[in-house]
């Protein structure tokens, strides 16, 4: 299971190797370009952007845009910057990711190791739920949140994200646990471990890779959500994507591109961090389950 590299390499000639490297580098450029330009331009003063070449490096390097976006940019009536919204998002994402991951793991565990009649159909139904377009759930969801008294609260947002995250997290864990030896579970059962003890002591310690995949996936999706955040949040629980939208989509006034870009980067920072920190485990995690179908 240790992945890092493996010898699926073929014997290739020097010309084809050169071609491979060229292709890989060009693609790297293609992937870096848009974001690179955002970074570069967020470090320029506004005049340099509107007057000049967007691909050139800044003549004057400045962090002004970054500073003002974080703490003083006008978002709505208050010049608060994106800082408070950033924390709103954190407060929403962390519990939502944790809950949906744990639920997904438990569901996967039940669906593979405690099978019962109709479990496959249930799983199919859960999986299909990933495909529901979020636009259609807004109104009924709002109603439910209102009835449960969760409207406009971070708790309500967490609920929404957990609900629509369960499908994928269950999928990941189910596929992972499907290849997890059932005999281990049986052995633990005979050793006298109960349902939860087997889960925590036997399955969880071996679920590292898939947990990473699931967390990355959930974190990215929930952090980047705009629709639910805008619709179900109150003035004091709006997530950062809504703030970014307010910053970038203001209808009048000078377009402060450098501030917009800095804002976009702030909004993307945690997810980027998650990818960079956990990315090495990502391929490993995918390998150990989810793509094995």
């Amino acid at each position, binding site marked *: 299971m240790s992945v890092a590299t493996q010898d699926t390499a073929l014997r290739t000639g020097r010309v084809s190797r050169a071609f491979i490297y060229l292709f890989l580098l060009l693609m790297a450029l293609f992937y870096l370009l848009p974001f690179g330009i955002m970074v570069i331009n967020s470090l320029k003063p506004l005049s340099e952007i509107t007057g000049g070449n967007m691909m050139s490096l800044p003549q004057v390097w400045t962090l002004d845009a970054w500073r003002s976006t974080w703490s003083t940019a*006008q*978002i709505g*009536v208050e010049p608060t910057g994106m800082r408070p919204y950033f924390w709103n998002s954190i407060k929403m994402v962390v519990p939502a990711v944790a809950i949906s991951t744990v639920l997904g793991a438990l569901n996967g565990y039940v669906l593979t190791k405690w099978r019962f009649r109709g479990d496959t159909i249930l799983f199919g139904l859960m999986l299909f739920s990933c495909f529901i377009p979020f636009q259609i759930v807004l*109104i009924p969801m709002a109603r439910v*949140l209102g009835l449960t008294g969760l409207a406009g609260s971070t708790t309500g947002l967490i609920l929404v994200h957990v609900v629509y995250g369960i499908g994928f997290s269950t999928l990941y864990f189910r596929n992972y646990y499907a290849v997890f030896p059932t005999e281990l579970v049986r052995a633990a059962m005979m050793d006298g471990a109960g349902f939860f003890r087997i889960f925590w002591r036997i399955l969880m310690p071996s679920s590292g890779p898939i947990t990473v995949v699931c967390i990355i996936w959930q974190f990215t999706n929930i952090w980047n959500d705009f629709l639910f955040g805008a619709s179900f949040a109150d003035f004091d629980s709006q997530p950062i994507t809504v703030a970014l939208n307010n910053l970038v989509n203001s209808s009048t006034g000078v377009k402060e591109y450098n501030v917009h870009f800095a804002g976009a980067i702030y909004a993307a920072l945690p997810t980027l961090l998650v990818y960079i920190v956990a990315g090495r485990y990502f391929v490993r995690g995918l390998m150990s389950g989810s793509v094995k179908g």
Partner: protein
Amino acid sequence: MTLIKQLKLSAAVLALTATTAAAADVEVLHWWTSGGEAAALNVLKGDLESQNIGWMDMPVAGGGGEAAMTVLRARVTSGNAPTAVQMLGFDIQDWAKEGALANLNDVASEGGWDAVVPAALQRFSKYEDQWVAAPVNVHSVNWVWANKKLFDDNNISVPTTWEEFEAAMQTLQDAGVTPIAQGGQPWQEATLFDSVVMATGGPEFYQKALIDLDPEALGSDTMKQAFDRLGVIRENVDDNFSGRDWNLATAMVINGEAGMQIMGDWAKGEFVAAGQVPDEDFLCFRFPGTQDQVMFNADQFAMFDQGGTVSEEQAALASAIMSPSFQAAFNVVKGSVPARTDVPDTDFDACGKKGMADLAQAAEADMLFGSLAQGHGAPASIKNAYYDVVTAFFNGSFDSETATEELVTAIEIAQ
């Protein structure tokens, strides 16, 4: 919550004056997020805070309030409506029809709103004879904003007819300038078309076609002619217009890349922000052929019903909005004109003064028309159907004949 509010309200009634009331908060949903707009709202916020009423800000920018309206839908459905919401035209009527809005009649009669707000505006602020919204401003959309230096350099005088307008565009074209700066979003193209229809068919035709939605008028040759004229304007727009924001188009006029922009009076804010002075650096005039008409839209704040009554904070907010001082302060910044006609024009610049005079005059002569593109001609479904056809034409998918036919069908489906 409701009970507390009622208690507070009765306390306020007992004290007979609003200022002594205990502090409470208003949550305001709006899409005024840019620097200037926010500064204007801050006037309102300060006003309320002086009355010990806190301001909870709930901005949702995007799409001229479209995003905010979606949020509103979710909030109302969940029973967690904001206290006050920025709204346009028919949206107010639609929400009032749902019974969601609070009756502001008491505040209105106290402030004498009936006398100072033009009747055409009241059509949107009132539902079944009840005031449900407090109008902040009146924007008008049949404005042309022009670069004065380019006009002077090319000896162009302010056009007053279509022919003169066409000639002016030609002159600018010949001089190597983009004649018309246009933003490429459906609402901008439709806003332009509003003026073209008015100029081509006259007020009666406009009323019949775009407000009463008479299929015959919609499918008439006059409409086709209006599309033809829009086509002429399209030829005078650079190819890079698609997707462009309106203020970027304004910037083109400001820095002399383009000669004119047909846009609502909010464009003025961009000129002012760029340090330009009306009549010296830029010109504002009515779209040729619509000199006597004012095609308007108005931002209003609707108050959401909080348990069958107007809360004391809502009342305070409504009267603060309608106070002449706020109306003046806000509209000077925003570029629009006050919704009350009795506000002195002293603080306004030349364009503002002209706008106020035009409004008063048009109100008098019954020449005040809601802009369809801005949601003041017909409900949102019709407005968007109208967008669909106009933008398809402007982007070259239809010729004028197909566009006319499509307009009839699209509006019929939307009804």
